[in-house]
């Protein structure tokens, strides 16, 4: 019951289809602007004129006569063929290479496309098969974008794109869309692509959803974490989105931007009726955000970006913890060490990702009930002046000769200030509410600032934020 009430209450923060159409699309996206958004060639021209980077137009085919007269050898080796008024990524053909001797092209999946295949496809486009409400359409060729190295492992045969919702010159929500095998290389969630929410302040990805609503942490079939991807050119992407709103006159805009390997961010298309799934990917409500931005006077593009970043960013840390299941900690943390008899000692520890193991000061070890062991270890005559190659053998000898119930191992540590041989004990500690069982080595740290350092081996459940 409580859950139902919460859902009903939160329902006011979500933008549904009714509210999108009645409160945003209808009053804010006038017919003229909608027409511009639905016409890809025209919007390409308008955006380019305003100084926004767009994929280059190679050629367009408007009629069957033009199709018959078309010079196929004029096409470059790779291109994208699109219906001018297509939607949802339908009817798009992308070729990656051309056969040397003939006018034949190769698709991403290795299929060969002949001139006849292309002609047939273009005939279908002109006939309106892929256009809104099946009206006659224009086919056009444009420059094929190349995949950014960063995105390569995340996307299947296609270019990911970034959707930014802009309202009142403020970017309010964004998501990265990754094409998958299921979506056939298309960056469309309805067809099974992955949508990843983006923190507006930092351009870092947060939660991810596969297709219409399955939350995922990793790229399917891999161990690639979808959260925490830092999107390059983030400022420019937001800037282009807001500029596109100014140019297009779309009061409620879905801007689609891709990143080309050579050219950087490139504006793909304007969307006058942006989908609502972006809310699922971001685990947040658009309506709530739109209402916060409504009525604010924004004079410049920069100001709009600033407002968007300030209002809709910065929650990333908690989200990161939620997604990765890892705690975000700073470079210095208060921890509680648990001694042999269960005594607890709170200390400040340095988080040292440069060290393998955790180590504590001799005095601290004594307080934790390992006094007996430290005395025992002090009495051992430790070899000095050996070289790295001998270390293994020396350790083995030491372990055999000297045994103590608390001593679980002996470590030889090579560091910038020489070699040291240290005893190792089992100690548990609590950091950020997590209880960690660690093999800790004991050494002289009395004259150092921190009595305890936590090494890599015991940090697998944490992410370190150096600014914290």
């Amino acid at each position, binding site marked *: 019951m409580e859950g139902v009430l919460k859902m009903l209450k939160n329902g006011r923060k979500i933008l549904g289809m009714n509210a999108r159409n*009645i409160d945003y699309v209808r009053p804010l996206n006038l017919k003229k602007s909608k027409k511009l958004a639905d016409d890809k060639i025209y919007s390409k021209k308008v955006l380019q004129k305003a100084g926004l980077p767009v994929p280059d137009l190679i050629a367009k085919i408007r009629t069957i006569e033009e199709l018959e007269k078309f010079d196929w050898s004029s096409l470059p080796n790779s291109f994208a063929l699109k219906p001018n008024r297509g939607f949802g990524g339908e009817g798009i053909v992308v070729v990656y290479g051309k056969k040397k001797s003939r006018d034949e092209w190769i698709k991403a999946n290795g299929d060969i496309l002949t001139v006849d295949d292309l002609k047939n496809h273009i005939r279908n486009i002109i006939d309106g098969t892929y256009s809104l409400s099946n009206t006659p359409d224009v086919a056009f060729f444009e420059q094929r974008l190349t995949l950014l190295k960063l995105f390569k492992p995340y996307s299947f045969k296609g270019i990911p794109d970034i959707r930014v919702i802009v309202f009142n010159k403020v970017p309010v929500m964004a998501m990265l869309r990754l094409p998958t095998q299921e979506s056939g290389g298309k960056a469309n969630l309805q067809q099974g692509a992955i949508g990843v929410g983006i923190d507006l302040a930092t351009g870092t990805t947060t939660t991810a959803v596969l297709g*219409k609503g399955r939350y995922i942490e990793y790229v399917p079939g891999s161990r690639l974490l979808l959260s925490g991807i830092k999107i390059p050119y983030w400022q420019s992407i937001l800037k282009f989105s807001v500029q596109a709103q100014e140019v297009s006159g779309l009061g409620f805009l879905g801007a689609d931007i891709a990143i080309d390997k050579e050219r950087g961010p490139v504006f793909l298309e304007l969307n006058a009726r942006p989908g609502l799934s972006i*809310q699922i990917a971001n685990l947040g409500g658009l309506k709530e955000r739109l209402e916060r931005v409504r009525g604010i006077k924004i004079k410049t593009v920069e100001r709009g970006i600033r407002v968007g970043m300030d209002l809709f960013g910065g929650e990333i840390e908690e989200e990161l913890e939620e997604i990765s299941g890892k705690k975000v900690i700073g470079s210095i943390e208060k921890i509680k060490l648990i001694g042999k008899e269960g005594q607890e000692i709170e200390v400040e520890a340095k988080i040292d990702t440069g060290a393998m193991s955790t180590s504590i000061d001799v005095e601290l070890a004594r307080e934790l009930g390992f006094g007996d062991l430290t005395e025992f270890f002090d009495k051992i005559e430790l070899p000095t002046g050996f070289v790295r190659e001998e270390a293994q053998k020396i350790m083995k000898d030491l372990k055999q000769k000297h045994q103590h119930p608390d001593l679980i191992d002996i470590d030889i540590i090579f560091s910038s200030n020489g070699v040291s041989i240290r005893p190792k004990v089992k100690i548990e500690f609590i950091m950020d509410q997590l209880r960690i069982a660690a093999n800790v080595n004991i050494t002289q740290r009395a004259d150092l600032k921190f009595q305890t350092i936590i090494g890599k081996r015991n940090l697998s459940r944490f992410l370190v934020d150096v600014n914290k």
Partner: protein
Amino acid sequence: MENINPVLAYLVARGLPLDTVIMLFMLPIIVTLIAFFRQVVGIKAFGIYTPAIVTFAFLTIPKLRYGVVVFVAVIVVGMLMRYALKKLRLLYLPRMAITLSVVAFSMLILLALGGSFQRTGLASVKIFPILIMITLVEKFVGTQIEKGNRTALILALETLVISIIGFYLASWNGLIEFIIAYPWAVLFTIPINVFLGKWDGLRLSEYVRFRNVLKNM
């Protein structure tokens, strides 16, 4: 018939079939129901015309289940034809013409089968509702091309559900008697639609769609 509105009584006396008059008054109620399903519940179906006309087709078929059989048969044949014709790579209208022709023949076979299995109810289905159902194929195949198989099937199912609900509503005696007595009450659907047309709340289906967001906000 004791409670008949004078205007209706006059029309009937003038030779208008009562059934026709009732159907005309029923139409606003059915289409309002469809609008309600779209705006509040979130069931899309194939627009407003298709579920409305299918509802009326159901009303003219002797038994609802025969109507459903015809509906399902039309969709299945339409779907099979799409695969059968895929290889030929025909343009839209000629392809649709072939599909509709084959659906028509399939109907003939279906009715003949009905006859031979003594399902006289099925065999005696009139031509008009069958034609209506056949035109449903264009909607279906068009959606298949635009939005894919899954969406088309879901929309077809939603159309069927709304039409069945519409059928029960329109054949409910209480409602029929009410319309005969107070036909002008039907005008009340207009303010209802004004409200539906301005209602910007979350649809029932959207509570399901965004359930994870709603729970985790």
